[in-house]
């Protein structure tokens, strides 16, 4: 009896031994650093428990940064999801030749990863004050977009640039869902007399809704954590919360070291919410794709 039990324990131990390197690595280099930050957010300068540090997040300077980041993420996610969906739907269900699809998906894969610093440079070269499109519009058509109030280094400029990777990510994720729409549904709808618009509004969109909303949440988290594009594009003129935290860590404004923890904690909470929505909705979306 005792030997059987011993063997069982030995086997269990051996089973677990294989995952120990992975668990140890992720514990030390992923979980503990994150937990460390979370605990730090509830600690005061003296090391005791306090909610004062978190309360500082609601001071105007930080609250504004959070709000700016949330707005940029909301708009870029909503527009990225909306327009990306339209483009993908147009290509897949709009009567375009079928050979367009594969290149579109491949290109989206590249564009979704073409983020960060180079993306900002590409847009500066195109729509900056000396950019190609800016100059062509001015020289050929007499339209000076900068006197008309356009500015790449602004809120909408940032959203416009973010759309590049947001839209491509949307196309990448929603294309399989769009291709999963069954032909029978459309035919059934049409033989019942539905117009194209009615089919989309009453059949296709409700089926796709979980995918759409889920991807929207993913796009939100995607742009909320982004920093390099904004840093390269606007310097620190648009003080996104990531840019603030970056400066705080670098020691530029380090009056209160615990404040950094609080900002980081706030960011974790927001992205965690967005990602949970994504994961829940994705599971729900999969029920239709079987």
């Amino acid at each position, binding site marked *: 009896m005792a030997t059987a039990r011993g063997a069982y324990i030995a086997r269990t131990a051996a089973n677990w031994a294989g995952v120990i390197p992975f668990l140890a690595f992720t514990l030390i280099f*992923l979980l503990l650093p994150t937990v460390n930050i979370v605990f730090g957010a509830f600690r005061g300068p003296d090391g005791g428990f306090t909610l004062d540090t978190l309360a500082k997040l609601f001071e105007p300077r930080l609250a504004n940064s959070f709000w700016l980041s949330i707005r940029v993420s909301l708009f870029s996610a909503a527009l990225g999801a909306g327009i990306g969906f339209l483009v993908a739907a147009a290509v897949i269900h709009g*009567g375009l030749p079928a050979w367009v699809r594969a290149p579109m998906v491949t290109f989206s894969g590249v564009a979704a990863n073409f983020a960060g610093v180079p993306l900002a440079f590409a*847009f500066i070269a*195109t729509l900056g004050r000396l950019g190609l499109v800016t100059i062509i519009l001015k020289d050929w058509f007499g339209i000076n977009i900068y006197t008309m109030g356009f500015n790449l280094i602004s809120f909408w400029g940032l959203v416009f640039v973010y759309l590049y990777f947001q839209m491509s990510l949307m196309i990448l994720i929603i294309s399989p869902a769009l291709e999963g729409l069954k032909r029978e549904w459309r035919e059934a709808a049409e033989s019942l007399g539905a117009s194209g618009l009615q089919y989309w509004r009453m059949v296709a969109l409700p089926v796709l809704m979980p995918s759409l909303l889920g991807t929207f949440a993913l796009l939100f988290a995607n742009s909320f954590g982004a920093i390099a594009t904004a840093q390269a594009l606007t310097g620190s003129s648009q003080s996104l919360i990531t840019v603030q935290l970056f400066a705080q860590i670098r020691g530029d404004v380090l009056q209160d070291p615990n404040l950094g923890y609080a900002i980081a904690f706030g960011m974790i909470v927001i992205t965690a919410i967005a990602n949970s929505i994504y994961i829940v909705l994705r599971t729900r979306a999969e029920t239709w794709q079987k």
Partner: protein
Amino acid sequence: MTEQTLSLPPAAVGRTARPRRNAWRAMSWAVFGMGILYFALPLIGMIEFSLRKRRGTYSLDAYTSVLTDPQFQATFAYSVVMSLITIVLGLALVLPTALWVRIRLPRLRPVIEFITLLPLVVPVIVIAFGYLRMFNTSSFLPMTGTVTGTNVLLAFGYATLALPYMYRAIDNGLRTLDVQTLTEAAQILGAGWFTIIFRVMLPNVFTALLSGAFLTFSIVLGEYVFAALLDRPAFGPYMIWTGGNKAYEPAALAVIAFAITWGCMGLIQLAGRLFPHTRAKR
């Protein structure tokens, strides 16, 4: 869905359907055209801008200037080496674990999967911040105290960032295999774990492995936050610095970065085509 695939007889579609369908198609083309315009213009813009360095004519001066810059060479080489180390590290971490979980501990799979998704949930900057707090000179593991230590820490950080992509690529590869049977067959023939991993599993998931590797490469190469906060001379911070100090070189850098991203994605596709998943004939 196109007209051709519609199985209804044309008469049943009715008289009004055709013009309406043409309107749909015209709208689709318009949307598609706008999409192309939006995606292509910045690429054209950056290429054109990168050629403008010499006054009055197009030239490759910006590229010459970038490529001969010792800073570029140093940071680029640093990031390439870092990417390769990250790939090896990520594979060493993920492949045995994914295998082991499939064979011996299926119960743990959701947990492992959840952990690998965490780097997408916790923003990169927060993880980097955690590193600075946890591994500083006054901590139990003072890795940021030495250059080597910081380099190792950066590689570990990159491996953490690559975890979601690596794990998903390899797990997708393993999904198509009967891991259990393969392992048992190998064990009956006397294979140890080393042989099982390197001579049985690795060739079978090679394509999946390659796509994980190339994706990791393109992510690590231009990564900015980690390298900047750990103060390592990587390509990402160099690009930011160039953006603030040069006029035409940033566009040239953007073209180079885009070409590399495109190359990595192209290689993923190529790998899938060159090494298709082969199955023994029954």
